[in-house]
């Protein structure tokens, strides 16, 4: 009889039943961070069905196209200077930027309201205010990627083209600062509109109307103001649309061509204050909106 | 006398066959269209309501083709499953709009009559957006009744409606059927179909699984033994007597008392049972056929 010896076969049936969770549970900070990351990825369609990746990446590609061409030229032909300044770039692709922010804001705000999944967030520890802030930050990050990527490419292009690193770094840095201010305001406006209207289509049109129509009107006023040699009016008008704010602030810092650049320290300061005020106002209203939605 | 006839109707989307060779006639009275989710009920109703063209076969109302024949809607009332989105209209405005679209001579009177039938006269002034689920269903029914149609098609009318309003809606449908209208409603909640429609058409994964009275259908399924639970004051002695019966296929003792009896021939078993019990001196405390309800008929058809 074969001696079984030390090894005796032993069958174990693991209990596949429900096992309670005993691991760590993180605080609101970590939860908000997780929501931010999820929102940022969703803004580019990552984590969502294939179809939803088309629009964001198409717009991003179109946005980067001019930068690629410039870098290509720099490297191959070697241009003495950037044909388009860092700060100039955001103005030229403002339509693409407008559509990107307008079409992606509903993904972060209207979607949860339309599909009712907002209830699942509000029935969890994260407070409504933090939910709104995390979503807003995600849209800001996505917009910054949209704006900073081309600047980075141009910057790398200049380094490869052995242009003078000092001035390039300085120009790029100032452009980056201006772009952050622009992103803050665009995210505020688009986020607020998307959080108010549940229907995606309507939110997109409303945001586009506010951004592009607003900019169109301000530019028209500025044109007339210069024609009438009364630039003051143009400068004031410039305070009322994110894009004109950007051009105005950029005129002083990065010699951006603006029809009626702000003259005098007071007016320049007004542009920066307007930038921050508009962003803060929209963010405040956004948070209020979600406090109301959560019923408290 | 309005009759809806489907003759060997099929409908497919690409290679997904939603409805497969179904022939059915729906006459006056209340008919329940029954089947699991995805069985093709909504597709069938869409075919009958002229919102889908049959890929094969014909769908006719009293001989007249339904597809792309908008005149049919003079005699057909439809209550779709979808929510109404005209939240900005009041109940009366919505029903009135339906009446006008039918080109009725006196849309106002027709609207009031329809609202009375579904007992929605008082809240009719309020906007639909403020209505409860039950009230929305009743307004939808009123909008389908306003032109006094001979045929009424309802897709899942009781979904999400609470008990009181469900009983009320059921009463309404029974009254419609009694008036001689041809009423067909789809549902997958058996309690509803059981209480309202005696005539059922069962559809399973696109095929016409059964039609007629569900009790009769159950008996037709002779290849399926009828399951009985018998509780007596001496189960084992009764079991010994039962197993000798040719109509009994199997007996199992239930752990909480009573016997599960599988019977092949219902007719002879029920006649023999009292005699056997009296002979064995066993008192029959409880006797219940456990699988005659629609639920089990349904389960058999689904698993067939």
């Amino acid at each position: 009889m074969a001696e079984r010896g030390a090894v005796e076969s032993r069958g174990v049936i693991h209990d596949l039943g429900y096992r309670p969770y005993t691991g760590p549970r993180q605080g609101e900070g970590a939860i908000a961070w997780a929501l931010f990351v999820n929102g940022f990825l969703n803004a580019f369609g990552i984590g969502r069905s294939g179809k939803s990746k088309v629009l964001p990446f198409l717009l991003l590609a179109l946005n980067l196209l001019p930068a690629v061409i410039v870098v290509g030229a720099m490297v191959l032909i070697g241009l003495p200077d950037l044909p388009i300044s860092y700060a100039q770039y955001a103005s030229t692709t403002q339509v693409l930027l407008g559509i990107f922010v307008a079409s992606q804001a509903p993904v972060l705000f209207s979607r949860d309201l339309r599909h009712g999944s907002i209830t699942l967030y509000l029935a969890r520890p994260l407070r409504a205010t933090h939910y709104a802030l995390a979503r807003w930050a995600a849209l800001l990050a996505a917009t910054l990627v949209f704006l900073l990527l081309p600047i980075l490419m141009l910057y790398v292009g200049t380094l490869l083209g052995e242009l003078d690193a000092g001035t390039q770094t300085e120009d790029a840095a100032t452009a980056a600062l201006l772009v952050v201010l622009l992103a803050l305001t665009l995210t505020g406006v688009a986020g607020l509109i998307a959080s108010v209207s549940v229907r995606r289509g309507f939110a997109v049109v409303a945001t586009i109307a506010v951004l592009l129509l607003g900019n169109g009107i301000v530019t028209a006023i500025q044109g007339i103001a210069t024609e009438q040699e009364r630039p003051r009016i143009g400068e004031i008008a410039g305070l009322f649309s994110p894009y004109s704010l950007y051009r105005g602030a950029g005129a002083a810092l990065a010699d951006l061509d603006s029809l009626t650049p702000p003259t005098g320290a007071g007016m320049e300061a007004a542009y920066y204050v307007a930038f921050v005020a508009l962003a803060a106002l929209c963010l405040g209203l956004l948070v209020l909106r979600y406090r109301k939605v959560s019923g408290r | 006398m309005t009759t809806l006839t489907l003759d060997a109707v099929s409908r497919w989307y690409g290679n997904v066959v939603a409805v497969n060779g179904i022939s059915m006639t729906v006459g006056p009275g209340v008919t329940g269209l029954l089947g699991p989710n995805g069985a093709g009920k909504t597709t069938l109703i869409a075919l009958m309501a002229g919102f889908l063209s049959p890929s094969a076969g014909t769908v006719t109302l009293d001989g007249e083709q339904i597809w792309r024949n908008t005149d049919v809607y003079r005699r057909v009332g439809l209550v779709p499953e979808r929510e109404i989105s005209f939240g900005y209209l009041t109940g009366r405005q919505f029903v009135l709009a339906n009446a006008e679209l039918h080109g009725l001579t006196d849309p106002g009177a027709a609207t009031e009559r329809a609202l009375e039938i579904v007992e929605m006269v008082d809240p009719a002034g309020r906007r639909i957006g403020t209505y409860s689920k039950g009230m929305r269903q009743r307004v939808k029914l009123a909008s389908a009744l306003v032109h006094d149609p001979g045929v009424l098609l309802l897709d899942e009318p009781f979904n999400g409606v609470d008990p009181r309003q469900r009983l009320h809606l059921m009463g309404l449908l029974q009254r419609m059927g009694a008036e001689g209208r041809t009423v067909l409603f789809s549902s997958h909640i058996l309690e509803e179909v059981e209480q309202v429609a005696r005539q059922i058409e069962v559809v399973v994964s696109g095929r016409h699984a059964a039609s007629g009275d569900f009790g009769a259908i159950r008996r037709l399924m002779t290849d399926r033994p009828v399951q009985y639970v018998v509780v007596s004051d001496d189960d084992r002695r009764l079991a010994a007597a039962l197993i000798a019966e040719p109509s009994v296929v199997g007996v199992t003792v239930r752990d909480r008392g009573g016997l599960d009896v599988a019977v092949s021939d219902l007719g002879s078993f029920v006649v023999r049972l009292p005699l056997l019990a009296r002979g064995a001196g066993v008192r029959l405390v409880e006797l219940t056929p456990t699988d005659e309800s629609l639920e089990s008929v349904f389960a058999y058809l689904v698993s067939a």
Partner: protein
Amino acid sequence: MDTVVRTEGLTKDYGSVLALDDLSLEIGPGITGLVGANGAGKSTLIKILLGLLTPTRGAATVLGHDIARASAEIRTEVGYLPEHDCLPPDVSASDFVVHLAMMSGLPRVAARERAAEVLRHVGLAEERYRPMGGYSTGMKQRAKLAQALAHDPRLVLLDEPTNGLDPAARDDMLGLVQRIGEDFGIAVIVTSHLLGELERVSDHVVILDGGKLLRASRTDEFLDATGTLLVEVLGDDAQARMAAALAEAGVMTQARGGLIALEPPNPAADRSGVPDLHDLVRDTAADLGLGLVRIQADHRRIEDVFHDAPADVTAEVARG
């Protein structure tokens, strides 16, 4: 810890509608059915317990936490399955449940494991990787249940989990609710329109009507026998002949649809000579050669609470 939920004088007054009216009740562990017509206050109560809605008056505690002060703690330990649609169509169930587990404070790795575990328990196999837009109603309800369990709550609030399900899916869902209450050791509060379900699943039932507590007791108390016996016979003119024979034997009968309802014998009357009702039915059927299809004790059902006009029911329920 016995009481899972306790409310004292909980009231929610929307001005036009009094959603909850001075509601004081206690819900213990196990599975409790919450029953009521549309607008009876079920969803309002659930939202207040979750801290999504502030009550006009009154107080409540959930799992020992006071809803006024410790609302965040409650929302960490409670799972919620809303009645309305709440699933984004372009996200897969797996990604969604992992994400929501993280929203409840679980780190990513733990969230991923828990999600896979819970999705297996609710019966979502490889469909969990497809976008939820293409799910059947049954699969959507399973995904909604999975997100309510992902963070291992001590109490789950299920708002009409079987809504829109066909019989097969409904039985699965009820089986799941029962396993959650019994095997998983999680307290369950479940609402439903189909009262038959709650009879099968819950061991306690709370009935709300117009924001007030109509009745709260163990489930079996609702289903006490009424003493009447229902009999069904088969054969030519079976029902009439059976009824006549029983009448001769001194038993009052009523026709109820296809059945015969035998009134319970008057307890006071002298019962010595009269054979037991069941034997009487058996022997009469045997003598007449009729098929005996059904003998059943007639039970009251929760639904009957709705049939009786609300007026007399509230009278029956002692106030307070």
